[in-house]
């Protein structure tokens, strides 16, 4: 084995990001590393590249134990990495980027002519014949990606880690990058390929390792797997699992409240139609990167739709930007609570009052007594566990932060609430409370859109589930069709509803 990882363990406060994980890469193979958000992929890669220090376990390269302490040290040992966001400098020329830090010199000065010649020759190995004197930023992302690969290989040359290298490429460009990767494999490099595009995994890789919740689930030859088994491993849920139906799916006849026609944006999400009934919970299911969050962002005006229209019973709605969407009675609790949801240094009261105050404008402050009343009210109603309302919200647990974010929207009395992964990073108790809260809200006539990676959660809470794949809405399941099996099959594109 070229690279051999044994019993790798890494813990962070509150979570075990990697738990006793084994992982091998042979010379001349492309090995896919798969898993949903929080499965431990990035932690594993960061331990390999020296960005994190592991707590336990061994890493061996060519049979010798290694202990990289920094990215540059990992590079010198032979482990190079290429990230989704190209980690090169667009303001330098291609040649400068390739040769950075080891430019040939003459009389102590950089010999730009020789730099150019060497860079040109290096790229020709990859079948790339471009003007290396132009700024890297003027080339397409695919070419930048290949330049990044060329640099990583020339610096390291044993193991190449590709972290979502194709996420922003189109089909033809992906093919370009794949040709390069295959060529490197044939030259004997060990390649770790991280991607959430399953087609690409089947197309390119020799073996697959799947992680879930910090544990290794399986390592298997790619050709022995099919889409279904792959997804089962990733989501940790076998098809034969019978899920008890706890939710009454009898609300399909809810009066239609919102209608979206042809909302979409090139390169983000294909145009889709969608309706939301009053008091209805609509779920969005799909793998990471399938376009769930993008759908929510389009509806809330965070991204502009190219064409299409939104309307309610009274006529067209203006969803140009979040402010307009809020005006239309929408609310959005984003996925990344820490950076997009809360203001960590402000108190629970201030966080709850934030949305309401923003809508009233700075000239009409919410009276302090009213603020206190609202905050206390929601702290009690949602059972936000905090010593008092003036405590900085950053000191609360994730579940209680999420409840405060919900309280902020509820204070504005929206009619349509979008919740992106509302239970991510929340303990089991709070998890159930949030789900119950969603049901309470819909019983009062509010409509909710829930995005979740946990299929059981969608089954439990949603009246209707829309399934996304590869940035497209591919299926819609209603009423009795909302079962774990049907959702899984739709995600895997087998016998869609």
């Amino acid at each position: 084995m070229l690279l051999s990882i044994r019993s790798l363990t890494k813990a962070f406060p509150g979570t075990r990001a990697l738990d006793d994980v084994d992982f091998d890469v042979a010379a001349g193979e492309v090995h896919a590393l798969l898993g949903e958000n929080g499965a431990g992929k990035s932690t594993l890669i960061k331990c390999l590249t020296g960005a994190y220090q592991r707590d336990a376990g061994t890493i061996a390269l060519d049979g010798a134990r290694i202990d990289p302490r920094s990215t540059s040290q990992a590079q010198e040992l032979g482990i190079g990495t290429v990230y989704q966001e190209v980690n090169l400098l667009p303001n330098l020329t291609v040649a400068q980027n390739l040769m950075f830090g080891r430019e040939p010199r003459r009389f102590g000065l950089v010999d730009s002519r020789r730099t150019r010649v060497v860079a040109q020759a290096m790229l020709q190995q990859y079948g790339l014949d471009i003007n290396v004197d132009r700024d890297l930023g003027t080339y397409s992302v695919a070419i930048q990606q290949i330049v990044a690969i060329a640099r990583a290989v020339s610096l390291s040359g044993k193991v190449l880690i590709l972290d979502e290298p194709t996420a922003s490429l189109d089909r033809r460009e992906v093919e370009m990058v794949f040709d390069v990767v295959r060529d490197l494999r044939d030259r004997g490099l060990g390649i770790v390929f991280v991607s959430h595009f399953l087609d690409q995994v089947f197309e390119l890789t020799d073996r697959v390792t799947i992680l879930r919740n910090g544990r290794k689930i399986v390592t298997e030859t790619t050709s022995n797997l099919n889409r279904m088994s792959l997804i089962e491993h990733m989501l940790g849920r076998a098809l034969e699992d019978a899920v008890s139906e706890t939710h009454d799916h009898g609300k399909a006849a809810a009066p239609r409240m919102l209608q979206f026609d042809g909302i979409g944006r090139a390169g983000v999400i294909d145009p889709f139609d969608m309706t939301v009934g009053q008091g209805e919970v609509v779920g969005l299911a799909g793998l990471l990167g399938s376009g769930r969050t993008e759908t929510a962002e389009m509806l809330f005006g965070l991204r502009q739709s190219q064409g299409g229209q939104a309307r309610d019973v009274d006529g067209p709605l203006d969803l140009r930007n979040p402010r307009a969407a809020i005006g239309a009675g929408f609310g959005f609790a984003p996925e990344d609570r820490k950076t997009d949801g809360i203001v960590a240094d402000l108190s629970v009261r201030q966080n709850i009052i934030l949305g309401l105050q923003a809508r009233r404008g700075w000239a009409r402050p919410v009276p302090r007594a009213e603020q206190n009343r609202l905050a206390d009210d929601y702290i009690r109603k949602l059972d936000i566990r905090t010593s008092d309302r003036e405590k900085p919200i950053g000191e609360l647990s994730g579940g209680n932060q999420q409840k405060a974010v919900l309280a902020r929207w509820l204070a504005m009395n929206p009619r349509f609430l979008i919740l992106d992964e509302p239970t991510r990073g929340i303990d089991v108790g709070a998890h159930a409370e949030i789900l119950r809260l969603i049901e309470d809200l819909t019983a009062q006539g509010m409509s909710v859109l829930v995005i979740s990676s946990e299929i059981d959660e969608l089954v439990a809470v949603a009246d209707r589930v829309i399934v996304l794949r590869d940035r497209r809405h591919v299926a819609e399941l209603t009423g009795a069709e909302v079962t774990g099996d049907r959702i899984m099959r739709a995600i895997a594109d087998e016998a869609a509803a």
Partner: protein
Amino acid sequence: MNTRALPLYATIAIFLLAYLLAWTQFPNILSTRVLGNLLTDNAYLGIVAVGMTLVILSGGIDLSVGSVIAFSGVFIAVVLRDTGLHPLVVFALLLLLTTAFGAGMGFLIDRLAMPAFIVTLAGMFLARGAAYMLSIQSVPIQHPFFQTLQGAYYLMPGKGRLTLIGVLMLLVVALGMVIAHRTRFGASVYALGGGEQTARLMGVRQGRTTVLVYAFSGAMAGLSGIVFSVYTGSGYSLATVGTELTAIAAVVIGGTLLSGGAGYVLGTLVGVLTMGLIQTYIVFDGSLSSWWTKIVIGLLLLVFILLQKGLLKLSGSRLARGAA
């Protein structure tokens, strides 16, 4: 051709166009005399602007240079008045001092992860205060060596004087070009300006580069102070107030991106000369208030900021097309 170089070409075009316009009105403006004076009068600004160019390319800013120039003048004048040291020795001492001063600011910026704006603002007050401490009055410099320096020039055809300080400025520009474009340090400066995180991943030694950049700027400010003392023949603690901003303006007019990572040292020279040309035009005209200089410079700055924004948009949309 790189879109990156477009602002440089635009600067050169604007300079030539302005010169042409001025020439149609005052044919005398195209003479070696005017050219020589342009270099001499702006020598101190050009030198300090080269240092500023590197700082801005690295993504930083140095607000202390105007004060450092004033301090340098007073330092030279007072030391020459009170001791028997030879001016060359005083120059060496001063350069050591200002380089260390710059390096210290760079160290603080890097170590404390403080914004360069605040650290060099503190440096600005510090250097100005130190100049006051040495002398509040303007101190004349009477050393014979200074007369030698002031009298050193090459008489160009057409009776224009190519002075020592003018030549020094051109040499500094050449030095700046070599450092920026032909050394690994220069590449690191561009890399830092392009993105600190990425630069670190590519192996740039961020601390070392930051310290060196501000040390270089400090050295250039000291050298500029020497040139200014030769030019005025005195040291005055109230001199060159706001020169740091004029230098920044010259750098931006010269086509360097204020956010760092893109630009050319040569552009800065053209920027300085453009500003000097406007001044010269106003002198030739005689009836215009000298405040027009400021107004025209303000407009030019605006034009260049818009130009750069436009170019960024252009290259951005090309990228998007490439990726689509």
